[in-house]
């Protein structure tokens, strides 16, 4: 038995408040203070509201067959990947 043949689909939704993770490119030695500052201020910092993530949750729920096995990465009302 497999789940798809039985009409069961699984999708992940990843709320994300940053389009990029600058720490991977930063030419500094990371420490806790720098890490916290990057997390707080890295542009473009698109804070996703709960309502915006809810849009992605509903989208995933309604399109389970199409999206099964995928992770929707979303921020600020946009689906990033």
């Amino acid at each position, binding site marked *: 038995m*497999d*789940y*798809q*043949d*039985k*009409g*069961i*689909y*699984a*999708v*992940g*939704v*990843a*709320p*994300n*408040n*940053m389009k990029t*993770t600058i*720490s*991977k490119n930063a030419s500094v030695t*990371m420490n*806790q203070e720098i*890490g*916290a500052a990057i*997390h707080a201020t890295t542009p473009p910092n698109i804070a996703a*509201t*709960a*309502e915006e*993530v*809810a*849009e992605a*949750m*509903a989208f*995933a*729920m*309604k399109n*389970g*067959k199409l999206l*099964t*096995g*995928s*992770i929707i*990465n979303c921020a600020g009302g946009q689906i990033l990947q």
Partner: protein
Amino acid sequence: MNQAVVITGAATGLGRATALKLAGEGYRLVLVDFNEEAGKQTAEDAKVLGAEAIFVRADVSNEEDVKKYVEEAVTAFGTIDAFLNNAGIMVPFRLLHEYDAEEYNRIMNINVKGAFLGIKYVIPVMLENGGGTIVNTVSSNSFKPTAYNGVYAATKHALAGLTKSIGQDGLSG
């Protein structure tokens, strides 16, 4: 008949916002949370928007509680068309060696075991009723972990892996 949706972590945040969005679209809702007062409030607010909604208090990491919310969903609405597996916790950022084992277990139990148990008990209902969709709330930490957030990142990697695996059952033949 409108679809029946179970949402865990429905008292606050993403779970509450999703519950209220779906309430406005006419879904029938089973709202699950450990926080009884806030969970009941979400159910009341969903009803004001026109939805049929019930609240079930549950600790998602407790197997008996999970069985209970699944049973109550079936009792109330006859089936589960969608399961929004959303409950999860995060703790303040810190270095990994500063976590104690008890805290590690608590995060793992809610974020990973809780998600697993929900799927485990929802799938038989879906199998019996012609299918359904499971949506797991993962995280940007499933792809790009932030510093000082090791245990949470581990839980969200686990949940992303679980989602990709069960979501692809059948694709590979």
